[in-house]
C-alpha cells in the first residue's frame, strides 16, 4: 500500500553547496577536513533559510564512500560541528542518489507531523583520504577508489564476472541508441561532442563547478584550435569504445545541503519556497535491464513521482538527470518524457540543452562539469534546480524561470530517486 498525498506538504527554504573539486587543491574547499566540508554546505543552507541550528528538529546526513572519508556514523561524527548535538539524526545513503532520496525522506518526516524543520546534508571526500596527522590527506588511487565503489555492485556474481561501469553504463546505451534509431557511430560521436560542448559551457558559468574550461579553451591549451579535432585526438581516448573519456563523470569532493520545512510555514523563511510536490524511488541490482534504453528502475520512479505531483512530462521546465555517463542526458531525457523518444538527440546536436536553450538539462554542467561527489551530488542537483526556480542562477539562469523542475539521480548500482519541485504563483 502507498498513498500519494502526505498529510502535510513540505518546501525547501534554503540550499547550500560547496565548490566541487579536490580538497587538496580547489580554492574554497582546499585544506578542509570532511566535517568542515559538510558544515560549509550546511551553514550556507541555514543562512539561505534564515534558520539557526536550534531551529532544526532533525537532520539526515548522506555520505557514500566510507573508505575515503574514514567515516560512518555521520550523525555523531558531525552533530556537534553542525550545532545539532543531541538532536535526532541519522546517516542514510542510496549511493549517488543519496541527497535526492533525502528530499523524499524529509517530506515524509514532515508529512507525518513528527518534525517541522529538517536539515539534509550530503558529503563525500573521494579524491583523497586522511592520514594520521589531521587534517592532512593524501591522494586516493583511482583504481582503489573504483574497487571500493564497486562494493555497491553485486560482489557474489557480477563483480567476479568482470563488472565494469564504462562499457555497461556508457558504451551499451550508446550502441543501443544507434542501433534502435538507425544512427551511425560517427553520428553518435557528433551528438556526444555537441552535448559535451554544452556541458562544459554550462560548467564554466557555474563558479562552483569542478571544470573551469570550456572545450575550445581546453583544446587550445594543448595547441589544437578546433575542438572537434581535439575530441577525436589522443587527449580524449575511449573509456570504453565508442564512449570517450570526456563523456564520463569527474569524481570529486563536495558537500550539499538543504533545509525543508512544512509548506504552510515556508513563507516565514523565504519569499519563494520551492515545494516538494512528488517523489519516488526504485532499487535494482544490476547494470542491465531488458530494454537498455528504458530501464524499469528509472521509468517507474519518474511515473510515480509525476503521479504524486500531479504533473505530466509536458509541464517540466527544467530537467536534471544523472549523467555520470553523458549518454544518459539523452537516454533519460527520453525516459522522462522531456524529449521525444528517438528524436531527443537533435536537441543535443543543435545545442538546445543549455541554459539559453528551449530544453535545459543539467545547467550546472552535470556529473562531468559540476563534478560527481557521490552522496552530495543529488543535493547539488537540487541546489541548481532551486537556484534556477528562484531566478538566482546568475550567468546560467534559464530565461524562462522554471516553475516545475524534475531532478533524477541514479545511485550505483542501482537506486533511482526522482523528485518533482514546484514554485508557487
Amino acid at each position: 500500500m502507498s498513498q500519494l498525498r502526505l498529510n502535510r506538504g513540505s518546501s525547501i527554504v534554503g540550499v547550500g553547496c560547496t565548490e566541487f573539486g579536490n580538497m587538496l587543491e580547489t580554492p574554497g574547499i582546499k585544506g578542509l577536513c570532511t566535517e568542515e566540508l559538510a558544515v560549509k554546505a550546511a551553514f550556507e543552507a541555514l543562512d539561505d533559510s534564515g534558520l539557526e541550528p536550534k531551529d532544526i528538529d532533525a537532520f539526515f546526513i548522506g555520505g557514500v564512500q566510507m573508505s575515503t572519508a574514514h567515516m560512518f556514523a555521520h550523525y555523531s561524527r558531525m552533530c556537534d560541528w553542525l550545532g545539532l548535538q543531541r538532536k535526532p539524526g541519522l546517516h542514510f545513503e542510496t549511493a549517488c542518489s543519496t541527497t535526492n532520496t533525502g528530499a523524499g525522506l524529509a517530506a515524509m518526516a514532515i508529512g507525518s507531523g513528527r518534525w517541522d524543520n529538517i536539515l539534509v546534508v550530503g558529503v563525500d571526500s573521494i579524491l583523497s583520504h586522511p592520514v594520521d596527522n589531521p587534517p592532512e590527506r593524501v591522494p586516493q588511487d583511482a583504481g582503489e577508489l573504483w574497487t571500493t565503489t564497486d562494493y555497491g555492485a553485486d560482489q557474489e556474481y557480477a563483480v567476479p564476472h568482470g563488472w565494469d561501469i564504462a562499457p555497461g553504463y556508457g558504451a551499451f546505451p550508446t550502441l543501443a541508441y544507434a542501433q534502435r534509431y538507425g544512427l551511425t557511430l560517427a553520428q553518435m560521436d557528433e551528438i556526444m561532442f555537441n552535448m559535451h560542448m554544452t556541458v562544459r559551457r554550462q560548467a564554466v558559468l557555474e563558479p562552483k563547478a569542478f571544470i573551469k574550461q570550456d572545450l575550445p579553451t581546453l583544446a587550445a591549451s594543448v595547441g589544437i584550435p578546433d575542438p572537434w579535432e581535439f575530441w577525436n585526438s589522443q587527449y580524449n581516448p575511449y573509456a570504453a569504445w565508442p564512449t570517450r573519456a570526456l563523456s564520463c563523470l569527474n569524481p570529486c569532493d563536495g558537500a550539499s545541503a538543504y533545509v525543508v520545512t512544512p509548506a504552510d510555514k515556508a513563507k516565514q523563511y523565504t519569499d519563494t519556497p520551492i515545494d516538494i510536490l512528488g517523489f519516488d524511488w526504485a532499487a535494482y541490482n544490476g547494470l542491465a535491464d531488458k530494454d537498455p534504453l528504458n530501464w524499469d528502475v528509472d521509468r517507474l520512479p519518474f511515473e510515480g513521482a509525476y503521479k504524486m505531483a500531479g504533473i505530466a512530462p509536458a509541464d517540466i521546465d527544467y530537467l536534471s538527470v544523472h549523467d555520470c555517463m553523458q549518454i544518459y542526458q539523452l537516454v533519460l531525457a527520453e525516459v522522462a518524457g522531456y524529449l521525444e523518444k528517438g528524436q531527443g538527440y537533435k536537441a543535443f546536436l543543435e545545442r538546445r540543452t543549455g541554459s539559453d536553450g528551449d530544453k535545459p538539462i543539467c545547467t550546472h554542467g552535470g556529473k562531468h562539469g559540476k563534478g560527481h561527489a557521490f552522496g552530495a551530488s543529488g543535493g547539488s542537483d537540487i541546489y541548481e534546480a532551486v537556484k534556477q526556480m528562484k531566478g538566482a542562477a546568475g550567468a546560467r539562469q534559464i530565461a524562462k524561470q522554471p516553475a516545475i523542475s524534475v531532478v533524477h539521480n541514479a545511485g550505483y548500482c542501482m537506486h533511482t530517486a526522482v523528485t518533482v519541485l514546484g514554485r508557487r504563483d
Partner: protein
Amino acid sequence: MSGESIVRTFYAALGEGKILGTKCGECGSYSFPPKTACTECGSRDIEVVEMSGDGELQFYSSGGLPPLRFADYAPYAYGLVKLKEGPMWLTMIKGVEVVDHDKMEAFFTTLPVAVKAKIAEVAGTNIVTFEV
C-alpha cells in the same frame, strides 16, 4: 532457506561444467545467476535448474580502466548477453575483436548474434563467459 549457500552451490557446479539458475514456481520466469528469490516477481518459490548456456550477444565493448582484479587480462571484451531463458547477463566475451574499432563497428552492425556459454577460470574464479 536451508543452511546451504546457493552461491557456493553455483560455483561448485561450474567446476563440474554445469551452469545453474532458478525457475520460479509462481511466474515461471528464470533468474540468473541463482539467488534467493525470483528476480522478476520476488517469489521465494523457486527451484534451482540447469541453464542451457545459449544466448544472444546484444552489445559488447572493452573498458579502458578495467577493475584492478582484471588488469592482467586487459584488453578484454565485456558484453551484454540475453540468455535463451530470458535473463540479461554482463560478462566477459571470447572470440571478438577488442582493439581494432573499425572491425568492432562492422561486427556491431550484425548484432545480436548467437553465443554459447564457456566456463573459464578468470582471476582465480570459475566464471560463465560467452563465446561467439
